[in-house]
C-alpha cells in the first residue's frame, strides 16, 4: 500500500462512506465541479452526481441549516466549510440549532461539518483560524482534530456514522506535508480516544493536530538532552479523553500542554483544571503550556512565526518543567 497524504485520507473517507451508504450526501461551496478549494472533494461530483454532491451558494447559515433538515429525514450530510474560519458565519445554526436539538426534543442531527483550519501557511487573520474553543463550550457537539492521515480517514468515517453533529477540523498545514501508509482494508478510529505517540517517563506533552508534530520534534530534541518526554495526541477534543490524560500525568508527574489555538481560553486551561481535579497529588511541577499569542493570526511570515508555537519553544518550556 502506497503512502498517502492526510488530504487523500480525508478524501478516501468521504468516497468510501458515500459508496457505502446512499444516505450520505455532501454540501458546500465549490465542492462539485471545482472539487473544493483544496481539492478534497475532487472527483466526488463525477462519481456521485449532483443530487448527492451539492454546490451551494455562499451561505454558511443556509448550508448548515439545510444539513440539519436533511439529518432529520435520515440523511447524513457532510458539510464543507471552504475555510473553517467561515464557521463563524453559521455559529447560531451550529450552537443553537444543531447542538441543542437532541437534548431539547430528542431529535438527533447526524451531520459532519468539516473544513481546513490552522495556520503556518500565511493565510492571514481570516484563513488560519483554530476555532475549536468557541465550540468546546457547546454541549451536544463533538470535535475532532486529527494529526495523521490514518486517523483523519478513520475518524472521519466514524464521524459520518455518528448520530451527533461532529465538527471535523483538518489542519491545512498537514494536508500534503505528511504521508503514511494506511491499511488496504476498511477501518475506523473511535471518537473520544487519545493516543500515545511517544512513550516517555519524565514529562507528558499533551497536544493535537499540527502541534503533535511540533511536540514530537521537540521530544526528539529533548531526548538528546536526556529528557524522556511522552507525547499524547488528543485526536478528539469533545468529548475529552479524561482517562488517557490522567493516566499519563500519573505516570510522568509533569504536564506540558501545547496548542496552536490562542492562549486565553484555550484548551490548556480546561485540561489544567481537569488534572487538578483528578491528579493534583501526582503533580511534581506546575502545569505548563505553549500556545499561540493572544492576537489574531498575523499575515507576514516573521509575524506568523512569532505568533505560532514551534519545537524550540516547546523544548524550552519542557526543559523548565523538567527541572522540578
Amino acid at each position, binding site marked *: 500500500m502506497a503512502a498517502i497524504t492526510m488530504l487523500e485520507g480525508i*478524501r*478516501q473517507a468521504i*468516497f468510501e462512506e458515500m*459508496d457505502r451508504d*446512499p*444516505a450520505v*450526501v455532501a454540501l458546500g461551496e465549490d465542492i*462539485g*465541479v*471545482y*472539487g473544493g478549494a483544496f481539492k478534497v472533494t*475532487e*472527483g*466526488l*461530483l*463525477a*462519481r*456521485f*452526481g*449532483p*443530487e*448527492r454532491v*451539492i454546490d*451551494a*451558494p455562499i*451561505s454558511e*447559515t*443556509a*448550508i*448548515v*441549516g*439545510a*444539513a*440539519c*433538515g*436533511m*439529518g*432529520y*429525514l*435520515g*440523511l*447524513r*450530510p457532510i458539510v464543507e466549510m471552504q475555510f473553517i474560519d467561515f464557521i463563524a458565519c453559521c455559529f*447560531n*445554526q451550529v450552537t*443553537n*440549532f444543531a447542538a*441543542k*436539538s*437532541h*437534548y*431539547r*426534543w*430528542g*431529535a*438527533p442531527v*447526524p451531520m459532519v461539518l468539516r473544513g481546513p483550519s490552522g495556520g503556518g501557511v500565511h493565510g492571514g487573520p481570516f484563513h488560519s483560524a483554530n476555532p475549536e474553543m468557541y465550540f468546546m463550550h457547546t454541549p*451536544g457537539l463533538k470535535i475532532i482534530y486529527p494529526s495523521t492521515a490514518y486517523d483523519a480517514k478513520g475518524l472521519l468515517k466514524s464521524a459520518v456514522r455518528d*448520530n*451527533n453533529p461532529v465538527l471535523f477540523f483538518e489542519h491545512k498545514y498537514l494536508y500534503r506535508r505528511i504521508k503514511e501508509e494506511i491499511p488496504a482494508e476498511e477501518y475506523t478510529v473511535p471518537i473520544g480516544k487519545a493516543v500515545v505517540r511517544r512513550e516517555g517517563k519524565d514529562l507528558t506533552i499533551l497536544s493535537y493536530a499540527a502541534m503533535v508534530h511540533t511536540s514530537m520534534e521537540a521530544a526528539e530534541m529533548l531526548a538528546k538532552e536526556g529528557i524522556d518526554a511522552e507525547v499524547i495526541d488528543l485526536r478528539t477534543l469533545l468529548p475529552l479523553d479524561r482517562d488517557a490524560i490522567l493516566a499519563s500525568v500519573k505516570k510522568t508527574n509533569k504536564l506540558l500542554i501545547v496548542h496552536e489555538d490562542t492562549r486565553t481560553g484555550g484548551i490548556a486551561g480546561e485540561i489544567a483544571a481537569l488534572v487538578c481535579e483528578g491528579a493534583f497529588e501526582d503533580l511534581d511541577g506546575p502545569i505548563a503550556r505553549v500556545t499561540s499569542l493572544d492576537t489574531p493570526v498575523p499575515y507576514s511570515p516573521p509575524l506568523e512565526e512569532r505568533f505560532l508555537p514551534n519545537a524550540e519553544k516547546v523544548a524550552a518550556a519542557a526543559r523548565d518543567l523538567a527541572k522540578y
Partner: protein
Amino acid sequence: MHVANSVKETGTRAAKLTREQYLDLYYYMQLNRQLEDRMVRLFRQNKIVGGLYSSLGQEAVSVGTAYALEPKDWLAPMIRNIGALLVKGFKPRDIFTQHMAKYTSPTFGKDGTSHFGDLKVHHTISPISMLGDLIPVMTGVAMAGRYLGQNIVALTWIGDGGSSTGAFHEGLNFAASQRAPFVLIVENNQWAYSTPVARQVPVKNLADRAVAYGITSKITDGNDVVAVYTTTKEAVEECRAGHGPVLIEVKTHRMKGHAQHDPAEYVPKEMVEYWKARDPIARYEKFLTENKIWDAKTKSEIDTRIEALLDEDQKFAEESPLPPPELAEQGVYCDGCHTIEADWQRSKEELTPPNCSVDAVWEVKSFGSLDPDAAAEMKAAAQAKQPQQLQARPGNGAPPARAEKIAPPTPPKALSNPSAVKAAAEKTAAQEKDALETAAALRVPFGRGPKDRAFREERAQKEKSRRGKRGRR
C-alpha cells in the same frame, strides 16, 4: 419589474371543501383560542413556568395553512402557531404540559412553549428562539424529501420581524436556487415586539421580497381562514408539482402584546378596533351560518367537544409531575438511543455509482453580458468552436464518468388536475427549448483553471505563436 403577486379575494368560492372540512377549520381555530384562553388563566395563577405568547387574532393563519398539508408533509411552527400543531395532530395536553414544564410534556420539561416536535409521526420540527433559522432547515427537509422520493412539501412561518434576519435571506435564496418544495408563510402581524412593520421593512408588501429570489409569491387575508387555506393549498400543489418554493404573505394582526407581560400600549387603539372587527373566528362563524354549513346545534356540539377535551387535558397537565432533577444530566448526545433511518420512496440504485455518476461540467447558459443579443452571440461562438468534451478525471477508483450533464434537481411530477397538466406540458416544452439552447452553450471543462497544466500549456502555446507573428512583422 412586475411582481408576481396575486392578491386573493377574501371570498371562499375557490375552496372545494366538504362540510366536515369546513367544520374542521372551525374546530381547530376555536380549540386554538380556547386552549390559549385557558393558558392565560393558568399564567395568572402562576402555573405557566415561563413566558406566554398569544396568537389571539392569528388563529386563521396557523389553522388554514397547516390544514392545506398532507400528513406526510413537514412543518415547523413558530411560537404563535399552536393552531398548526393541533391540526398536525398534537394534543392540547402537549401544549399545556410544555408551558407548565411537566415531565409528561413532549420534551420532558427540557424546553417549553411550542419548542417541540416529532420526526416519526407528526413530521414536525421544533423551532428555536432565533428567528429565521427554520427557513434553511425546512429547505433541507424539502431537499431531503425530494432526494428520498417522498414527494413531500415543507412549510414554515416567519413574522414581519423575522423577515429581516440573515437566515431568512440565506435560506430563501438557497431554497429558490434548489427549486425546493418549500412554502414560506410570512405572517405579517404588523408588530415585531413593539416595532411597527413600516419601521422594519421599506417595502409595501413583504411578498415583494420574493422577486429578489425569482420565486412565486402570493398575498392573502390572514383573518379569512378559507382564503388562507385556499392560497396555501395552491402553493403546496405548485411545490409538489416541482414549481417551488412559494412565499405567501398573510396580512393579520397580533391582538395582544409580544407576550403576557407586554400590555402593548404602543399599538394605536383604532388599529386594535379595526382588526377586532375582522376577528377571524367571528367572521368564520358568520360565514358558516350564512352559507348554511352549520346551525346553532352543530356549533354547540363542537364547542362542547372542545370544552370536554380541554377539561381533560388541562387536568392531566396540572396533575402531572415536574421532571426528576437528574434528567438535567441526560440526553446531550444521541448514543444510539435513536435509530436514524431514511424512509426511501425511490430506488437507492439510482443514487449509487455508476448510476448516479455524471460528467462533471457546468452548463453555462449566459455569458452575463449586458448586450441583449448576448445569447445569440454565445450560440454563434459555440457553433464556430465545437465544444470540447473533456471527461472528468476518474478519482479514487471512480469509473469513467458518463456523458451526461448536470441537470437541475428532480423534475416535477404532473398533477391529475387538468389545468396543472396543461401547465406542466407547457413547462416541459419550455424546458426542452432551454435544453436545446444549453446544448449549444460552451462547457467549462472540469477543474479548469490557472493551476491546470493543460490550461497553462495551451496559454503558453498561444502566447508563443502571438510573439512569433509579431516577430515576423
